[in-house]
């Protein structure tokens, strides 16, 4: 092997290591033991028709080993419907849904994780927690997003992690180590674009209070705003069980 080739491989390995390190830093800086917020969701379809939902969100744990309870509070027709999501580091999450009008829970097996999340422009995969170890990274370069210098990184799911996307482009704010934009691709076609904005430092964690996702093919977009967000709230394990889901 020529010296040049060895040098190129070494540089490539170093760049990959850098990208992975950046992503690990992003994960570490956002780490919290629990989280609680109230979400407000607005879906604007291609004909500008708007539908809204509100929910309360509780998370216990982090980095792909968390449990989440999401309880819808509005509109009236979905009020009381709750989701229990148990994330696993090595496989897709387990999810259950509680429907108060039927007084029963059901296991939701989103085998096709490209399914849209309850009429929004998110897919269920988009909502899963990303563990840095589940992806390979490559540094693509540097770009500015909304005036902020960013690293542009490409991530590809490892073989052990299935994904609807072939690859994802992530723009990481160099100063705050947060995402400003994510573009997800299937081959050469962009499927979704997510913008993160309205960052505030809450309990020393830079947190986007506004998030906008665009479904490129459907020409629709969803805006998610979070309110009353808190980290490291004292949440009990018992709150994240099927029994608890049924009780409330």
């Amino acid at each position: 092997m020529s010296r040049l080739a060895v040098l190129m491989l070494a540089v490539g390995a170093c760049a990959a290591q850098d990208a992975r390190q950046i992503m690990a830093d992003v994960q570490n800086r956002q780490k919290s033991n629990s989280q609680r917020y109230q979400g407000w969701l607005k879906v604007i379809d291609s004909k500008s028709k708007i539908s809204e939902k509100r929910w309360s969100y509780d998370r216990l744990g982090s980095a792909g080993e968390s449990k989440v309870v999401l309880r819808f509070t509005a509109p009236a027709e979905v009020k009381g419907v709750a989701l229990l999501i148990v994330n696993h580091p090595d496989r897709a999450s387990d999810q259950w849904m509680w429907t108060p009008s039927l007084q029963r829970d059901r296991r939701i097996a989103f085998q096709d994780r490209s399914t849209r999340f309850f009429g929004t422009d998110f897919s269920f995969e988009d909502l899963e927690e990303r563990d840095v170890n589940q992806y390979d990274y490559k540094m693509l370069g540097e770009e500015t997003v909304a005036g902020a210098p960013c690293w542009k990184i490409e991530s590809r799911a490892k073989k052990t992690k299935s994904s609807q996307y072939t690859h994802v482009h992530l723009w990481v704010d160099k100063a705050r180590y947060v995402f400003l934009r994510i573009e997800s691709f299937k081959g050469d076609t962009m499927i979704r674009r997510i913008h993160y904005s309205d960052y505030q430092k809450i309990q020393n964690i830079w947190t986007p209070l506004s998030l906008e996702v665009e479904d490129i093919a459907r020409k629709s977009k969803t805006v998610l705003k979070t309110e009353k967000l808190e980290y490291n709230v004292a949440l009990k394990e018992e709150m994240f069980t099927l029994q608890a889901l049924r009780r409330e």
Partner: protein
Amino acid sequence: MILLRLLTLPYVRKHKLRTVLTIAGIALGVVIFVGMRTANDSVMYGFQQTVDRLAGKTHLQVSAGETGFPEEVLEKVQAVAEVDIAVPVIEATVQTGLAGQGNLLLLGVDMTGDRSLREYDFEDGEEAVIDDPLVFLAQPDSIMITRDFANQNKLSSGDKLKLETIAGPKQFTIRGIMKPGGMASAFGGNLAVMDIYAAQFIFGRGRSFDRIDLTIKPGYTLEQGRAALEKALGGGLQVDPPSSRGKQFESIASIFSVGASLNSLFALLIGLFIIYNTFSIAVTQRRAEIGVLRSLGATRGQIRMLFLMESAALGLAGSLTGIFFGLLLARGMAQYLSSFFGEMYGVTQRVEQISADPRVLGLAMFAGIFMSMLAAWIPARAASEVDPVKALHKGAYESFSDHENRRRLWAAATMCALAAGCWFGGGSRGLPLYTGYLSVIVAAVLLTPAAVRWLVVLLRPLLRAVLPVEGALAADSLMQAPRRTSATVGAVMLSLSLVIGLGGVSTASYVSLIDWMNNVLNPDLFVGTSEQIAERSYRFPASFGEEIRRMDAIDDVQFVRTARVQFRGVPVMVVATDIAAVGKRVRPKVVAGERETMNRLAAEGKGVILADNVALMTRSRMGDIVEIPSPGGVIRLPVVGITIDYSDQKGAILMDRKVFVENWKDDSVNLFRVYLKKGVGPEQGKRAILERFGSERKLFVMTNEQLRDYALRVTDQFFGLTYMQIFVAVLVAILGIVNSLTVSITDRRRELGVLQAVGGLRRQVRQAVWMEALSIGLVSVMLGLVLGAVMLFYYLGIIREEVAGIRLDYTYPVKIALILIPTMMAVALSAALGPAESAVRSSLVEALEYE
């Protein structure tokens, strides 16, 4: 072709009526064949089409027959590595209560995953609502319907639709309208989709699913996926492609299909006789013509070909006519069959269109032409052998030579010997059984001329006693022309024998059914979910039975759960009930085993009791270990008894309810057998149950008498074919007798003319023709009733050994025979009216100049 144009066309023009009757004879066979096959195929095709349209991208389906299985199975399926997407389904039909709409096929699916498998194409503007399964799932009254259904009933999004649920009628909100085409065209567009958990509630399914639809991951073959699933699920659940559901339906309805095929075959056979009759007559009438042709150098081959070409042309015309009317008949019959299958087998189907299989139409065309040429073969050969010198001699050629008679008798004796050999040689089933059956038919046909001659000889004194001159003329006419007469008699005889055979089966079925009902169906009331007992969409929770039991008027309630499962390749019915309680009340006929022991063992869950027909069809015996698939695994239990049971046409396996509940994890109930306290009348008990529960539950209460009437009505529908066959027999008789008499009168114009010239009255001529017709009718009926007795013997054998395993006692259908005699005589007389008038109104001068 020249001969055809020069000789055949003028003959056809001269004998238009006979030509039409001959074409009608062929057409009749083809009509029955095309009509019945196409109607049957259309129902099957409709079912398969619905299955296909609902299947979407489904590769395989996991099911437990009809019973459904616990929800937990879904997780097992989803955990199989080869499975890509697996979604649960509940599929059932509901009554809409909307005028003219009939049933609505309701698909219960889990909208969170189902859209990965099925295409739901919605109207504009509804995407947002339907794409948000949260709204759909959060509101259990959500329902989606098709655009066709919405248009037919003037419904739109947001409107309410009332449906029957197990808890009584409920209003549902239309939250989506599917565009026409694709999945929305399943079940003729009468399709609705709702959340699967809401469907569980509606149909009282507890926590079970009917089936799981799934796709296999790319890179795996269907067989790999199937093998992996079977391994993961054990042997109790079936893993099949969607197409296999059509085959199961065909298997359930196979008894009916066999009946339809038999009828079609007979119809074609009868058509063959009519053609034979026509050509025999044509050859006789055209002997002089043939003689001249032979004198002018026409070869035997050319003459034979001339008649065969004529028969082919008539066959073509008859086939085309038959196909046209057959398709019309199929249209009406398919709807009848569709509702009949719903009542008989609990498989509701909606026929969207007539499925005219080109192979069936091609076969009908071929059969029509082939049968026509086959029937004309003997007359054509006879024509080719006409001696030119003797050609102008008249008369003797309508009779059989002694040599021919001897040959026929020998052939008939051989056929009888073959039939006897088949039977006594252990051929009570399979090929020997069918060989024996066909041999008897052939023997009967060969014996017909001789039998006609003997019977007419016996009848002659009787005819003379009634009307001396006319009676003698009629009898002599028949005896002088056995070829002409025997073909007509043969056709009518065959037709009537089929009526007697099928009638006998129906009579024996009624006798056996009533006997069984007397022994087994003795509760005062039956509480079901629908007026159709076979319908199994809705189920009661077991707690409902306890509520009924607590009522003052009630003495005892027995819980019955029925469900179809595959057992040794036969879709049999599992009947699960409290055997200890039922055993105290009912006494079915025991075929094998001892009553007390079998009830005790079955009640303890140590065995099952088989219906006799299941035992026969699956070759099961006492002590055999039977394997019954269940969601909990394969149940292996010994046969502890075999009894006569008509719970289901394909047979029943009786097991104790606790065995079912344990293995199916399902304690729901299809039917409650209710015994009332002494002094409480059935109507009073029925009223009490309806008053107590009618407003809060979907339930249907039948008194014992009403249930019996229901069972007999469904049986009536099943044997509706018999009545159709009587209609065919009447048609055949009219065609044959009119044909025969027309020729007879034409042949005897001179004779009848002379009779009138020497002072015979018109009345006498007319009555002579009538007497001849009545004689043909009487002889046909006599032979038909005798052959029918033999046919019945074979039909019972075929039903017992080949089709349903049901042992029916030989019961000659005396009532049907008694109806047939005057019917056929009236038919014969009415068929003679036209020819008789033609005979008396023909010119005397022309008649005396004739020939």
